C-alpha cells in the first residue's frame, strides 16, 4: 500500500487555481521529487498534504487514513513532518531548544526529549551550534535546523521544501549526505528542489508540475527525456 495518496487535489486562492487535479502516490522508503518552475504550485501541494491548507477538492490519504482537512499537528503526530521553504525557526530559542520542542511530540520526559534532540543534532551536523540562539544562525544552518526539527518528530514521511536553496557547494554536499542517511533510516522523503543535479542524483521518482497541473511523472531518466518537461522546466532553466 502507498504511504501517501493524493487523489485529484485542487487548491484555489480566490480565483487563482494554484493546484489543479493533481494525483500521485508515494511508496514507503522512496525519495519522490516534486519539481516545476517558480510559482508552479509545489509549496501549495505540500501545504495541502500536511494540512496547512484544506484541499478545495480531492482527497489526501496517509497510511490509508483520509487526512484531507485534518489539522497539521494531528497529521504530524501520525508521522508526517515538513520543513518550510521560508524557514521558520523559533527565533529566540536556542538550536537545541528548537529541536527539543519537536522531540516532545513522542515523549513527555525532558530527559528523553533532550536525548532525541541531541541525537538529531549530531545526525544533522548541528551539534556544535546547539547553544546558538537560532536567530543568529546563517541561512545554510537554518535550513538544516528545519530538517533537524522535522526529524525530531520521528516521522515516517518527511517533506522537504527547497532545503538546498541558497547553500554553498560544501553545504550542498553535506545536505545530500544527510538526505541519503535519512533514507537509510527507512524514512520516506518527498522533496521539492530546483537543483537539477541534486534531484537527478537522489530521487527515485519525479513528479513535475507546471501551472498547478501535473505534466509528467517517472524516473529521473524518463523525466530527463520528457519533451513536455524540457519545454516547461528545463527550458526555463536555460533562460535563467
Amino acid at each position, binding site marked *: 500500500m502507498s504511504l501517501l495518496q493524493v487523489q485529484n487535489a485542487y487548491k484555489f486562492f480566490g480565483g487563482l487555481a494554484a493546484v489543479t487535479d493533481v494525483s500521485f502516490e508515494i511508496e514507503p522508503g522512496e525519495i519522490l521529487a516534486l519539481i516545476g518552475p517558480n510559482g508552479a504550485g509545489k509549496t501549495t501541494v505540500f501545504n495541502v498534504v*500536511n494540512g*496547512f491548507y484544506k484541499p478545495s477538492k480531492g482527497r489526501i490519504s496517509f497510511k490509508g487514513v483520509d487526512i484531507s482537512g485534518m*489539522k*497539521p*499537528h*494531528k497529521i*504530524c*503526530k501520525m508521522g508526517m*513532518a*515538513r520543513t*518550510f521553504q521560508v524557514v*521558520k*525557526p*523559533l*527565533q*529566540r*530559542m536556542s538550536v537545541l*531548544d528548537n529541536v*527539543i*520542542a*519537536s522531540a*516532545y*511530540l513522542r515523549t*513527555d520526559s*525532558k530527559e528523553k*526529549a533532550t536525548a532525541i534532540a541531541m541525537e538529531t543534532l549530531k545526525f544533522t551536523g548541528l551539534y556544535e551550534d546547539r547553544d546558538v540562539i537560532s536567530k543568529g544562525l546563517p541561512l545554510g544552518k537554518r535550513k538544516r535546523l528545519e530538517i533537524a*526539527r*522535522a526529524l525530531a*518528530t520521528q516521522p515516517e514521511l518527511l517533506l522537504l521544501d527547497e532545503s538546498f536553496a541558497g547553500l554553498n557547494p560544501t553545504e550542498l554536499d553535506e545536505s545530500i549526505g544527510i538526505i541519503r542517511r535519512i533514507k537509510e533510516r527507512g524514512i520516506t522523503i518527498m522533496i521539492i528542489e530546483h537543483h537539477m543535479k541534486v534531484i537527478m542524483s537522489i530521487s527515485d521518482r519525479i513528479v513535475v508540475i507546471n501551472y498547478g497541473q501535473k505534466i509528467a511523472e517517472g524516473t529521473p531518466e524518463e523525466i530527463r527525456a520528457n519533451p513536455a518537461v524540457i519545454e516547461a522546466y528545463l527550458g526555463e532553466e536555460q533562460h535563467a
Partner: protein
Amino acid sequence: MNRVAIPLAVFGALLALPLIGLSSYTMHILVLVLMWTTIGMAWNLLGGYCGQVSFGHAAYFGVGAYTAGILYFKLQISAWWGIPLSVAVVSVFAFLLGYIVLKLRGPFFALATLASGEVLRITTENMGEFTNGTLGILIQQRTWIEKTWYYYIILAIAALTFVVIRKLVASKWGYYFVAIREDQDAAESLGIDTTRYKTIALVISAILTGICGAFYTNYMGYIDPHIVFALHDISIITIMIVMVGGVATEWGALIGAGIMVLLAEWIRAIPGLGASHQAFFGILLIAIIIFLPNGIVGDLPKITRLFRRARA
C-alpha cells in the same frame, strides 16, 4: 544553585518583613505589590511566554472578585471561600472566552480580549439583584483590622504562583508555549496542538488572576464593576507591570509591581494632579518601550553597562 537560593532568600525576607513592625500604610503597599506581582506573573505566562498579549485580564480579576463578593452578598457565605470557588468559576469563563478569542491572532486577539473585559463590566453592571449593579458589594465585617494576615495570605498566593509558573515554563508545556509565541505555524506543523496549548495557558493565567480578584474582595471589603473590571486600572496596569519589569522573565513582575505601585502612590501624593496621573503612566510606558524594550530585568545587562559608564 542560585535558581533555588535566590527565590528562597526573597521568600524568607518577605516572610520576615512584617516582624520589623511596619506601619499599616506600608503593609498596605506591600500587600498591593504582592497582589500585582501575582497578576503580573499570571499575565506573563500567557502574554510573555505563550505570546498571546491580553488587554483584558480585568475580566478574570473581576470574575474572581465577584465570585467572592456574590458568595457573601447572596449566600451569606464567607467571601474567603471565593478563593477556591473562583478557580472553578474563572476556569469556565476563561475556557469559553478562550474558545472565541484564541481563534484570533496578534492585534485581533488583543482587541478581542479588550472587548471581553468591557463586556463583562457592562454585564455585571446590569445584572441587578445578582451583582447589586453599579452599587457594588460591601463586605460588612472585615476578617481582620490588621494587615498582617492579609499580607501572609497574598504572600502565599504569590509564592505558589511563582513555583507553579517556574515548573510550567521548564516543562513540556513551557516549551510548547514558547514555540507558539515564536511561530504558531511552525509549532502547529511540528505536532503542537496550538489551540489546546493556548487554551491551557489562558486558563491557568486566568485562574491565577481570578484568585487575586477573590483576594481583593476580601482585602478591600468593597468591589464594584468599575473597579474590578477596569480597563486602565487593571488590564493596562497589568501589562505595564510586566513590560516595566521584563516580559518573559521570572522576576519582572515583582520588580514591575514594586515600581508601579510605588509610583502610583507617589504620583497620587502630588496635590492637584487629579486624573492626569494616567498621563504620567502613559509617558512612563512610552519611555520604557523606547529605552528598555525588554524591561528592567530583561535589559539588566544594558542598565549595568550604563551605570558603569556613568561612574567611569
